[in-house]
């Protein structure tokens, strides 16, 4: 008998990506220096500086909006939907062709495991462009009219850099809008590679503009008077600031914000799959997921058994080098985020919840946090209410379906929820009663270009994906 069946490191080659020492802004089809300073983007797994990236100023943003407006007026809004579609199909194809390169670069800049960037992020990105490409010449059947809004200002987060870009750009372009997009300051590289893909696709200059920077750059986009549409994915706090900033204007807004999803496990659940769903729900992408199943609500009668199985499963998670094909959990995206996760976890302990972390060796350099679960959590605990946005699960118990619903809905958020039970009628009842934009029953964290995604309450408004996702970029059937 032996336990030497260990996996040797199986790193994906980094040679496929060519990271330049510095990057400019992508405005009007070209990379330009911009007028601001620059900032560094680092590999969160090693803390190595990857590149210097230009920080766009108000004037740079203005240039980008002007370029987008010109492209909108002169080219893009005049082009037939069928022609726009062909550009989007081209982009989708190039994303597939350069898929490995995009995946490796995403893992280097973001810290997510290569098996996720390779098998989840990048394929869905390509699929998203394919899906919306097909809508471009069929908008009159959408139910939302076929009149574009104009220039869309889009601000995206660091957790799914390229996927969020696709969710924003693909529908905007399909509907005939042009865009100015700001990637997150810790993960700008794949957006800049996407800019190169736009060049390879011969996309007309100005249709897509990428401006890098932090909060000030984002504010400049959101408040620019010639932006007709604001699309934001990120924190609820910033979402509220955006809602205030656009008050009294004609800007159309969609917001995809935070969450604190309940993942509800009944005693008749398919337990092995439920445990997988719990693990996938909170440890996928290091828990940097707005719809993460961060609150496990487990029926008291099976709570011990579920926890035993969960811990046993967590002990098999492989934490480490994001480029290793066997890695399940990668690096925390930034020092700042790591500090926040540590702080809230400390609060959890201080408030009396019991902490258990999977036994794993964490690398010496870089930002890491072991998969962690808190038991004995009550609704009043901060770790049951605040979004931790990391690999930290809070476990609560319930006795009856009504109690589960009550606890699940007892939050200002309403992005997603999970239900695990073998009883069909109970699934439908729970799905009806949960106030959340996405309900995963006997599954979790599934995404598809055809499936609308978005929240209730303080998780934001508007939907991305599917036919519903077109509404955000069209004037409406009554226009």
């Amino acid at each position, binding site marked *: 008998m032996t336990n030497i069946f260990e996996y040797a490191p199986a790193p994906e080659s980094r040679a496929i990506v060519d990271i330049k020492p510095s990057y400019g802004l992508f405005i009007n089809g070209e990379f330009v220096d911009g007028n601001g300073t620059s900032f560094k983007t680092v590999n969160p797994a090693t803390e190595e500086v990857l590149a210097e990236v230009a920080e766009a100023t108000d004037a740079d943003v203005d240039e980008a909006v002007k370029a987008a407006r010109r492209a909108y007026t002169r080219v893009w809004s005049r082009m037939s939907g069928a022609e726009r579609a062909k550009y989007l199909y081209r982009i989708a194809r190039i994303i597939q062709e350069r898929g490995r390169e995009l995946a490796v670069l995403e893992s280097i800049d973001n810290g997510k495991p290569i098996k996720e960037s390779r098998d989840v992020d990048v394929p869905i990105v390509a699929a998203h462009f394919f899906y919306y490409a097909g809508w471009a010449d069929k908008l009159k059947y959408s139910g939302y009219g076929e009149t574009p809004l104009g220039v869309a200002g889009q601000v995206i987060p660091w957790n799914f850099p390229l996927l969020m870009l696709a969710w924003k750009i693909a529908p905007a372009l399909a509907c005939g809008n042009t865009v100015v997009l700001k990637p997150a300051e810790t993960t700008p590289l794949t957006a800049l590679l996407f800019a190169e893909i736009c060049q390879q696709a011969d996309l007309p200059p100005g249709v897509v503009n990428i401006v890098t920077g932090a909060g000030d750059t984002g504010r400049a986009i959101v408040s620019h008077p010639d932006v007709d549409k604001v699309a934001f994915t990120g924190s*609820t706090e910033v979402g509220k600031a955006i809602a205030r900033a656009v*008050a009294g204007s004609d800007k159309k807004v969609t917001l995809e914000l935070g969450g604190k999803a309940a993942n509800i496990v009944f005693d008749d659940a398919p337990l092995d799959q439920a445990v997988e769903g719990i693990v996938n729900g909170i440890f996928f992408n290091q828990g940097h997921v707005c719809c993460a199943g961060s609150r496990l609500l487990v029926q008291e009668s099976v709570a011990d058994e579920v926890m035993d199985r969960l811990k046993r499963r967590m002990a098999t998670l492989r934490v480490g080098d994001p480029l290793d094909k066997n890695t399940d959990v990668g690096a925390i995206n930034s020092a700042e985020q790591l500090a926040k996760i540590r702080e809230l976890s400390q609060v959890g302990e201080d408030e009396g919840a019991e902490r258990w972390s999977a036994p794993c060796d964490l690398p010496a350099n870089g930002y890491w946090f072991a998969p962690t679960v808190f038991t004995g959590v009550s609704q009043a605990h901060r770790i049951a209410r605040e979004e931790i946005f990391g690999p930290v699960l809070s476990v609560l118990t319930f006795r009856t379906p009504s109690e589960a619903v009550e606890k699940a809905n007892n939050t200002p958020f309403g992005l997603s929820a999970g239900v695990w039970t073998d009883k069909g009628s109970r699934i439908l009842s729970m799905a009806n009663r949960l106030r959340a934009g996405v309900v995963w029953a006997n599954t979790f964290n599934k995404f598809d270009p055809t499936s609308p995604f*978005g929240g*209730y309450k303080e998780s934001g*408004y508007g939907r991305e994906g599917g036919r519903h996702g077109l509404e955000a970029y069209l004037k409406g059937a009554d226009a």
Partner: protein
Amino acid sequence: MSRIDVRKTYKLYIGGAFPRSESGRSYVVNDAKGKLLANAAQASRKDARDAVVAARAAFGGWSGRTAYNRAQVVYRIAEVLEGRREQFEAEIRASEGVSAAKAKTAVDAAVDRLVWYAGWADKITQVVGNANPVAGPYFNLSTPEPSGVIAVVAPRDPLLGLVSVVAPLIITGNTVVVIASEDHPLTAITLGEVMATSDLPGGVVNVLTGSQAEIAPWLASHMDVNGIDLTGVEDAELATELEVAAADNLKRVRRPSPGATDDWLAEPGLDRMTQFLETKTVWHPIGV
């Protein structure tokens, strides 16, 4: 010698009952010629708070009813309104100073609008929801659900305008706190009487009369209100203020249409319904 009229006291409509304002205040409502019509209750922030509580309490039951049942209730409102049309025509003529023909047209349209929306209850889901063909073994369905408690600032048009903003919200299962037109509040309370006798559960529609500028900010900033319809806000500055306040809990906001007066006689589109609907998407694996 002619008989002395028994005049009606116009109160608020909250939770199915007709209370006076808790503040004890009222204000003078004049007719088009400036002559006293009645004293209307002048609602306070606490009345607004009570109305939100009533609307929240009613939400679960109302949104949980079958669409067919909501259609029946809203159709019933149309029936009862039709039966009391003379009273509404008289109130509209007095309040707005319009001709008998115009008042009749307005009541006709209001009744017809209720009938139109009643029919939407069990169709809107089919028109705005759909199945999603995801690339995997999953059943995936998107359906609309009501946003929750919606505050409405009603437009100047006392009956047709009011019906046109309230009906699309309740037919989909939302519950409503509506601030009646400050200048023409009486019809709103009379409409409350119609709703109270049409099997509409208490709290589904709550009517406040009084100062828009005083009450609306409390509703806009209320953390248990899910959306706000600013249709009747004519002061652009106030509208912006309310929208800013609404951001505190990310209310769904319908902005006033700037400069354009709504043509209440035109057939509405879907947007007054869809603006206060959420899309819920449910996934389930397909397997044996």
